[in-house]
């Protein structure tokens, strides 16, 4: 962890935060992600044939399940694991805290995308944008929980305090998710049988379709890792900038204080405190 050196900088000539040296592997992952995503788009839109039943709608199959997998599993594993490792005294390091926070923030994007792509698919197939299906409902609740975590994270605090607070919140959310899952599952399926096609299990079609389907998981996972890495770097920079700003405003406050003392002393000595205007002639009539 390279943070800004805690020397007090002069207010004006504060050195800009050094731009991060992004590790080489992150570039590689990003590049691979772009390539895999390009192939997915090409295969998904041009090469694969339209589905027998759903026509071109089935092409959503090449993005929606992959996005949902990232949103539910990868994000969950990184966020919960990072928080747990932060709280564990032996592995306590801000690295885990930042990693978990980055995962949740990327997770918000992926959860929202899951809902949007699912909604786009649901409108023509089910006839509605939204239905109170168990998976939809639990994903929506997951999104709200993640937004709550990010709101908590934005509350200013010292870094270790914030890290501990957020790690506990993440774990509390993590234990809630299975319960949310089961409760909405029962809620929806107790009275009526599930009538929905599950898009994840319909890939016994042409080989090009299943290959594209598999490739999409690789592509979105790579994109997830890349986003996670970039977001982690941004998190490091944000903390550094926050520290820098704190130092600067502290320095300003110090110099203000000293200048104020120097100015105030001779002016006030021996002079009568000026009276406010209204205190003299207020009751003339």
């Amino acid at each position: 962890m390279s943070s800004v050196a805690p020397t007090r900088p002069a207010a004006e000539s504060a050195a800009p935060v050094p731009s991060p040296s992004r590790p080489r592997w992150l570039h590689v992952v990003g590049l691979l992600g772009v390539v895999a995503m390009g192939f997915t788009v090409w295969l998904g839109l041009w090469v694969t044939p339209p589905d027998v039943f759903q026509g071109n709608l089935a092409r959503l199959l090449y993005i929606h399940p992959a996005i949902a997998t990232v949103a539910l599993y990868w994000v969950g594993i990184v966020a919960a694991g990072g928080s747990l490792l932060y709280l564990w005294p032996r592995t306590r390091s801000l690295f885990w805290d930042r990693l978990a926070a980055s995962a949740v923030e990327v997770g918000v994007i992926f959860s929202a995308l899951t809902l949007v792509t699912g909604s786009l698919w649901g409108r023509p197939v089910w006839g509605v944008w939204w239905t109170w299906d168990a998976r939809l409902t639990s994903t929506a609740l997951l999104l709200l929980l993640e937004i709550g975590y990010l709101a908590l994270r934005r509350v200013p605090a010292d870094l270790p305090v914030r890290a501990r607070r957020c790690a506990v919140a993440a774990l509390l959310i993590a234990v809630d998710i299975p319960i949310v899952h089961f409760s909405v599952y029962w809620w929806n399926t107790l009275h009526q049988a599930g009538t929905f096609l599950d898009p994840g299990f319909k890939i016994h079609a042409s080989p090009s379709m299943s290959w594209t389907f598999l490739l999409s998981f690789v592509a979105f996972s790579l994109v997830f890792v890349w986003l996670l890495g970039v977001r982690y770097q941004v998190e490091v920079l944000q903390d550094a900038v926050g520290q820098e700003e704190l130092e600067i405003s502290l320095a300003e406050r110090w110099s203000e204080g000293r200048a104020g003392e120097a100015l105030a002393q001779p002016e006030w000595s021996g002079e009568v405190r000026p009276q406010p205007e209204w205190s003299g002639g207020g009751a003339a009539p």
Partner: protein
Amino acid sequence: MWHDAVLVAGKDLRIEARARVGLWQVVPFAVLVLVLLAFAIGPDQAALRHAAPGIFWVALLFSTVLAIQRSVAVESGEGTRDGLRLSGIDPAGIFLGKAAAVGLQLLALQLVLWAGMTLLFDVRVHVVWLAVVASLLATVGLACAGVLYGALSAGLRVRDTLLPLLVLPVLAPVLLAGSKAWEASLNGAAASGTQWLKILVPFAVIYLVVGIVLYGPLQEAG
């Protein structure tokens, strides 16, 4: 731990008995939610009766947020939290005590809501044991999860706006399971209601255990 819990719960309840914030603010608020939701649904007696369990639980959830905020506010002034921390009381005891105090208030509140529901919506609880068991389990879950999130938001300047956002989605399973269990007990269909206890039991147990374990680290973070 248990002795400390009794001490803390007694302290909170004594403050509550003297300040009467719960009695004069939280209880009227809960009844107000009942009435407002009835306005939103309309005067159709059948529809109201159908929606009654949901209304009951929504009112209870909102009131839980108020009760939690109150429970946090009691500890927020004049370095009270530090005092509590320095007193050598086991953090798990503090957690259990505060949860017990909140839980007892919530139970009293549910009695009022039940009476209000009977009067306003003309519903009758047919399977009493199911409703009572569901309420007890849900109360444990609500109080434990609520006190945990209250502690999480305790030192924050924005806690009053942040707490509902954090805690309400987490409590959603209780709302679902509780209202379904009550629906079953209103309709006299015990068999379909008991299944929902399988949500309420793990929720209560998990947050009870997690609270006992995590309340200490959480307090240090505040």
